[in-house]
């Protein structure tokens, strides 16, 4: 009981403190400011792109991890988990040294006319890097939770593996996939350390909401708090939106995610 109250205080009080400090009118007025809109738009755009990329790249890998045994599997799992435990700033330094103009892969990227640092693409790459493990772990757990008898039954009906994947595996693991995507998206939206290190900080191009909050905090605390509340509101709206999607409960997915680990 005491532990519960303490936890509620610890988790709830900061949210309350943020919300109490900003009158709704101020919030709306701020929302109309171009620089706030810019940061918000950039945050939504980059996190949408990175989440899409995470799902696109992560889905096949998660399926592979859930259904096959192969050499180096443990190593691959470890590699995918690393961004989850890596301090984001360290991730940013690594990204810079790997994909920076003067980085290991810089020459190859240049052949394609790409120079990542200080671009919006770098923001997306940083988000992709940190969000990947959240989706892949959840999706892997989801695929693992599909009972083999359904797949066997599909096979006895001569369904092709792709048909089975599309019509059996995917619907059954949908809650986990959505939960993973939601967590990955949340992580991408909140990304700070890797972004400021790898992509820099320029309004309109690389200054996402978390960076805008950080910068504002140094000169205008009220602006920072307002931006924070805005970010909080956006996150909540999207998470709630996902939660009430018909036929899907994120909670179920998250539970499966936890069981799978």
């Amino acid at each position, binding site marked *: 009981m005491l532990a519960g109250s303490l936890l509620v205080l610890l988790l709830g009080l900061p949210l309350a403190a943020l919300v109490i400090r900003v009158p709704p009118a101020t919030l709306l007025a701020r929302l109309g400011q171009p620089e706030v809109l810019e940061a918000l738009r950039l945050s939504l755009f980059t996190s949408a792109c990175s989440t899409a990329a995470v799902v696109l790249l992560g889905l096949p890998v998660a399926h592979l991890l859930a259904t096959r045994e192969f050499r180096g599997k443990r190593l691959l799992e*470890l590699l995918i*988990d*690393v961004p*989850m*435990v*890596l*301090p*984001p*700033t*360290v991730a940013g330094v690594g990204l*810079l*040294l790997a994909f*920076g*103009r*003067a980085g290991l892969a810089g020459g190859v990227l240049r052949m394609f006319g790409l120079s990542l*640092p*200080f671009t919006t693409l770098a923001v997306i790459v940083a988000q992709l890097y940190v969000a990947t493990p959240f989706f892949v772990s959840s999706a892997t757990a989801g695929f693992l939770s599909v009972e083999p008898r359904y797949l066997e039954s599909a096979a006895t009906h001569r369904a092709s593996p792709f048909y089975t994947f599309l019509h059996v595996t995917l619907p059954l693991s949908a809650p986990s996939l959505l939960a993973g995507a939601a967590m990955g998206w949340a*992580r991408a939206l*909140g*990304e*700070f*350390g890797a972004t*400021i290190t790898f*992509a*820099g*900080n*320029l*309004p309109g*191009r*690389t200054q996402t909401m*978390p960076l805008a909050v*950080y*910068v504002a*905090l*140094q*000169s205008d*605390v009220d602006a920072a708090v307002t931006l924070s509340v805005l970010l909080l509101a956006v996150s909540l709206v999207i998470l709630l939106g996902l939660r009430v999607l018909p036929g899907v409960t994120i909670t179920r997915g998250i539970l499966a995610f*936890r069981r799978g*680990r």
Partner: protein
Amino acid sequence: MTAMRNRTSMPSLANHRLAIVALLLGTFPVSDGAHHAFHATTPSKDQLTVFAAASLTESFGELGRLMEQRHPGLTVRFNFAGSQQLAAQLEQGAEADVFASADDRWMKSVQEKQLLAAEPQIFARNRLVVIVPASNPARIDRLAQLSGRGIKLVLAADAVPAGRYSREVLQKLSASTGFEADYGRRVLANVVSQEENVKSVVTKVQLGEADAGMVYRSDVTPAVSRYLKVLDIPEESNVLASYPIATIRNSAQRALADGFVDLVLSAEGQSVLERHGFLGVEAKAGSPVPPKPR
């Protein structure tokens, strides 16, 4: 950067993952300050906390060690960051004994909040230079080239003293002969990142990711000078950055804090600062540029 977001805790992490964390933390360079912070938990010896502008990292590091030698048992902890960030932290109630800012503006801001124990004193001056990576990818050897199309320039943000000084320099250059009137505007259009402190500008240029940056002369330290080329800014277009220092009113050890301020202002302290590329307090707008730091 002190406000770091680490959303890395997940339920039921296997042991091997914790081992990775330990490994990473172990290999991640721990700064002097953080190192001392760990020991701060042992029964309290005398400890002095100095909030200092990022450009003072090397010189104040040395002055801190000097202070510790003079006062056995004393530990000097530093919080190096952009002056604007230090001011914000102090105004939010961060505990410190001494504040050293890279410009008037943030010292005044702290002073207006009644947080200082005494009138601030100027202890050093500095000049700006333009740095380019040693590889010089954009082949910049004249200041006029900074306004060229596609140059990737990194400056400190507007709120950072170095950032404000940089913009002043650009304004002065635009008004001087040999430069277009819209030089400053075009250079600013080339800015690809506004860094939170001057040291981050050095890093981005040093790694070769930016084509050029504007930093203090004292930032071209022995540790980074071989990665950089320096372009001097003519005296008449340069700024003379002034660094004020003051004891914080709530300091629990005023005597020691004043002692540190005195050390910085003493002949010995001044010579340490000069060795690190700073100008003495007497430097006026017309004084000659000092030799490059070691």
